[in-house]
């Protein structure tokens, strides 16, 4: 089995800290993973709004080139940390394999460029890899600086759990809570784990900002010290618009926001800079044990 990293387009920009912390954590856990060569954009939510066939073919190309780059007998697991990428790849896989009409079209389009879609690739979210392949016991054993006293609101957002995810409960996801708990943190119980962050609407509409206000406020009410995210867009919306949201809704306190992989990295004793902790608008204050 081989893990192939699909960083996605935000990894080189706003989501850099997610990319950095994932790569660092995989290294620290000795899980081998290499980046997919020649990968292209997953299409995100924008491509589908313009052209359906192209959106599917775009995402499916990544799966087809991965199959092409590795030996036929190898089991390939594409690790897609961004929720939009995860969903985009999974959706393309789902339709290519289960829908004769769209699937036929995608396969034909790929064949035009001499690619054959065999359906060998699994699409995996790193949450799934950490919790189920690597295992919580091992995570616990490798924790050097437990996140003791850190109350975390695990935020999964929409596209990890809906509608194609195979590893999580749609309404009551647990993997992130379990991972962070194994590493010493205290997950708080809150009702917004899978509530929408507004996606691309947050920067452009007041409605989107209001959705983020609800998330920040609910996390605060639940007593969280930090919201842990698993998607570059969720993280961006919650941290970068927070000053605007605070001003508009009269929120008094800041609510720190960080990627769950950064928190994992801290628990593994990794260097803060390498984990991109300096690339956050509202970084968490990690309690230091005396």
């Amino acid at each position, binding site marked *: 089995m081989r893990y192939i990293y699909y960083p996605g387009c935000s990894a080189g*920009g706003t989501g*850099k800290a997610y990319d950095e912390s994932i790569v660092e954590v995989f290294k620290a856990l000795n899980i081998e993973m290499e980046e997919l060569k020649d990968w292209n*954009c997953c299409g995100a939510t924008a*491509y589908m709004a*313009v*052209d359906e066939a192209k959106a599917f073919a775009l995402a499916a190309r990544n799966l087809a080139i991965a199959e092409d780059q590795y030996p036929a007998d190898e089991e390939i697991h594409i690790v897609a940390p961004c929720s939009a990428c995860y969903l985009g790849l999974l959706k393309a896989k789902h339709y290519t394999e289960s829908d004769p009409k769209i699937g036929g079209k995608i396969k034909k389009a790929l064949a035009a460029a001499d690619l054959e879609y065999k359906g060998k690739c699994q699409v995996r979210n790193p949450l799934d890899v950490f919790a189920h392949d690597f295992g919580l016991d091992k995570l616990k054993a490798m924790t050097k600086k437990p996140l003791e006293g850190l109350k975390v609101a695990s935020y999964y957002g929409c596209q990890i759990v809906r509608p194609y995810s195979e590893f999580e409960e749609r309404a009551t996801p647990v993997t992130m809570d379990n991972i962070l708990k194994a590493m010493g943190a205290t997950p708080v119980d809150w009702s917004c784990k899978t509530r929408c962050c*507004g996606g691309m609407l947050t920067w452009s509409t007041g409605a989107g900002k209001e959705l983020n206000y609800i998330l920040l406020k609910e996390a605060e009410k639940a007593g969280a010290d930090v919201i842990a995210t698993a998607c570059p867009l969720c993280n961006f919306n919650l941290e970068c618009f927070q000053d605007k949201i605070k001003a508009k809704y009269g929120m008094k306190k800041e609510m720190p926001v960080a990627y769950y992989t950064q928190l994992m990295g801290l628990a593994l004793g990794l260097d803060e800079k390498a984990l991109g902790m300096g690339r956050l608008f509202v970084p968490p204050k990690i309690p230091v044990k005396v």
Partner: protein
Amino acid sequence: MQNAQERPVLDQAELDPEFPRRMTRKAWGENLRRCIQCGNCTGTCPLSEYMDLGPRKIISMVRSGNKTDVLKCDTIWLCASCYECTVECPKEIKITDVMYALKQQALDAGHTPRSMPLPVLDREFFNIVMKLGRSQETWLMALVILKTNWLRGLDLAPMGLKLFAQGRLSLLPDPIKVGTGKKGDLKTIMDACDRLDKEEEKEAGVSSH
């Protein structure tokens, strides 16, 4: 903008029967006719209270062929693709995919609400990826701001500076080679999609007569 839900449709001639036919022909569209108007979709939609119509009405209007109002509404552009409605629909209607298809048609027809930069963003995103194979956030935002309301740029400037200081604004693109014509070439695949779409349209046209 006129509120679409308050506009009564009085005349059959205003309806376009080809519109629902087109939608149900989609691979995910067969279920559309089974909608029982239960409202689960609108009830679970986190954005419905900001929408002019909401997903339940959209489905109903699509089925009746009220193309004009559906393509002009702001509901489709307020859909954040969270898939809440899709997983909650008792009739397994893929509402999120319906929203996508409506966005496609609204863009093609040039019906995009002026107040919203999202249609412009979707189009520009599409164009950048066609050229570079990957998206480039900084260019994309700059283009959208220029093409919609540059005042928005002023509003976002402080955030942009902070992102830049944190090394989170990628200024150089990180493209793949597109248009090589070799094995796996993205452009070849996209061109093939155009061809296949046209063939499909032609076939559908022949069979519907």
